[in-house]
């Protein structure tokens, strides 16, 4: 009994070390983002299709001016609840470069579902030139590439404030409570009613931020729902198998004194 307690404590300790390893880079003076409830949390967590579609609208109308989502293809949008025709329509609104054609020329054509969603800039240099030297990051993985990613993105989008007295802001920088160092080159991206939602949801800043996070969380981990479903079945199966093996072990070992 004693040994199993110590063993459990040991495992807990290792988990703790693993956990602190994860939080070790909570950077500098930025506070930890407050925890939000997300539909994709937990064992049965799934993505909220309506929120993701609203979030995609926010991305398209606001973020896409500066940020790409280069790991997403138009075809992926079917996963957030758009029909095949809707995906074709969304793709066709965007011109992409294709080629070379038979005469060796590159040419423009409407995008197809099989195309990656193009970013706003041709290269990083062009992006910096258009943004006072700052590079807008690609957003495909942002929800996984920060500590407590979804909470962080939400906190950042809603964390713009006037700088406290005594804080000297660098030119073209904005004060944000949750950004490491508090000085961020991105202007406050969301303003009330900036996006007119098709489903009539009021476009408050927290609402748009939440919807955008739902979209970006899916963009970073599109297989989460499949993973959650499979995990439940796998673990259920393993529990049954464990029970069977335990019974078999008891039975077999009852033949001898041990």
């Amino acid at each position, binding site marked *: 009994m004693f040994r199993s307690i*110590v063993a459990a404590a*040991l495992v807990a300790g290792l988990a703790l070390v*693993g*956990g602190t390893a994860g939080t070790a880079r909570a950077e500098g003076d930025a506070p930890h983002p407050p925890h939000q409830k997300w539909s994709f949390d937990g064992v049965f967590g799934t993505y909220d299709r309506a929120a993701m579609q609203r979030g995609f609208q926010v991305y398209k109308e606001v973020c896409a001016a500066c940020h790409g989502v280069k790991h997403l293809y138009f075809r992926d949008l079917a996963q957030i609840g758009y029909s095949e025709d809707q995906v074709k329509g969304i793709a066709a609104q965007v011109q992409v470069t294709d080629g070379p054609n038979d005469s060796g020329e590159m040419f423009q054509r409407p995008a197809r579902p099989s195309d990656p969603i193009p970013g706003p800039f041709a290269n990083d240099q062009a992006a910096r030139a258009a943004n006072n030297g700052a590079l807008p990051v690609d957003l495909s993985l942002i929800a996984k590439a920060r*500590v407590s990613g979804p909470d962080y993105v939400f906190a950042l989008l809603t964390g713009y404030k006037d700088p406290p007295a005594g804080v000297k802001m660098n030119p073209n920088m904005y004060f944000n409570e949750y950004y490491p160092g508090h000085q961020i080159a991105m202007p406050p991206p969301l303003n009330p009613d900036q996006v007119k939602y098709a489903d009539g949801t009021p476009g408050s800043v927290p609402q748009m931020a939440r919807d955008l996070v739902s979209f970006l969380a899916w963009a970073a981990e599109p297989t989460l729902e499949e993973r959650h479903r499979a*995990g439940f079945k796998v*673990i259920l199966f*393993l529990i049954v198998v464990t029970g069977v093996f335990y019974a078999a072990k008891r039975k077999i070992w009852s033949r*001898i004194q*041990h």
Partner: protein
Amino acid sequence: MAVSQPGVPAGSSSTPASLPGSGHGRLVRWIDHRLPVISFLEHELTAYPTPVNLNYWWNFGSLAGIILVIMIVTGVVLAMHYTPHASLAFDSVERIMRDVNYGWLLRYVHMNGASMFFLIVYIHMFRGLYYGSYKYPRELLWILGVVILLLMMATAFLGYVLPWGQMSYWAATVITNMFSAVPLVGDSIVTLLWGGFTVGNPTLNRFYSLHYVLPFVIVAVVGLHLVALHQHGSNNPLGIERRGPQDSIPFHPYYTIKDMFGLSVFLIVFAVFVFYLPNFLGHPDNYIPANPMVTPPHIVPEWYFLPFYAILRSVPDKLLGVVLMFGAVLILFLVPWLDTSPVRSARFRPVYRWVSWLLPADAIVLGWVGANPPSGAFVVIGQIATFYYFFHFLILMPLLGKIERPRPLPISIGAAVLAAGPPVPAAAPMERR
């Protein structure tokens, strides 16, 4: 203290192949007469005499073997989809996650499998330390195990570089730079590791090649580990050799079913990580593509390297830090001779029984220090914990063996088991002696 036991077949590979029993058909006998694989398996797996009293700590050896196979199988399939090029590697991993059928599963199993492998092997090693499994005649068995640990560490580091995220890149930079501490040839070694003058595409290519080949070297050393194991058989919680047939049971079905039970319990833990906490043990920065121009605020290795990382950072001198870090692993080679106690099992060692737990506790402290920035109290705690780590092996182990008075050992495993009586589990009364 160990002598050959009458009645218990101790030899392994040198035993001439005997024809398998009458249960086999003509084809099997025909094959076995020419290629004695069947009788080999019967001898080494089915009939293999094993101490009757192994507890669940003994499950971790076979678990380690199974996770090695899982890593190789998932790794080989991942390699079919991965592109080892500095400008394509990160995106190819994302393609695996998004577009390869069950690619997310393969990658998360492989990624978390590395952590599970280390967790299992660390527990396996602690069991060896607690029950004195490295003592005569199993010194080489232990040493081969430490060789496996070193190969695992190299393989895990090389594999961590392959996704070419920020932590991959900067871990590669930090770790390879440690070799520059070697006097005279240090810089040449680093250039050789990099294949250039900085971590870049040639580095990724050679790391990929080595990451693919080293696991097969591990398999070979595991083979030797098993040969050494089967020469004298498993140690056991009492730490006394088997004296006769009454001390042993055939491996199959007793330990096959016990290992299967242990495996399925382990797979539940593994599945919880893979399906519900796949990135818990990882670092978010590794989802940012490698960028030589931007250094992450804190470069931290995976959790299984944190204690060693803490040792490295607790010494202000670079060379000494590197020496101590490698020394922390290499010192394990000497354990069979550092432990001077005539008794194997900590069960009969009233002091070491408690002291042995201080080592994993110290490792957890070191891991905690390694996960945090090296400033303030962490520096001091790290230095104390580093000191204790070496004190444990170099001073406590030799000293305790000399001054501690062990409790009397049971006459035989069988006697101890019989004395325990049927209704009570065998282990508990032994502990109270």
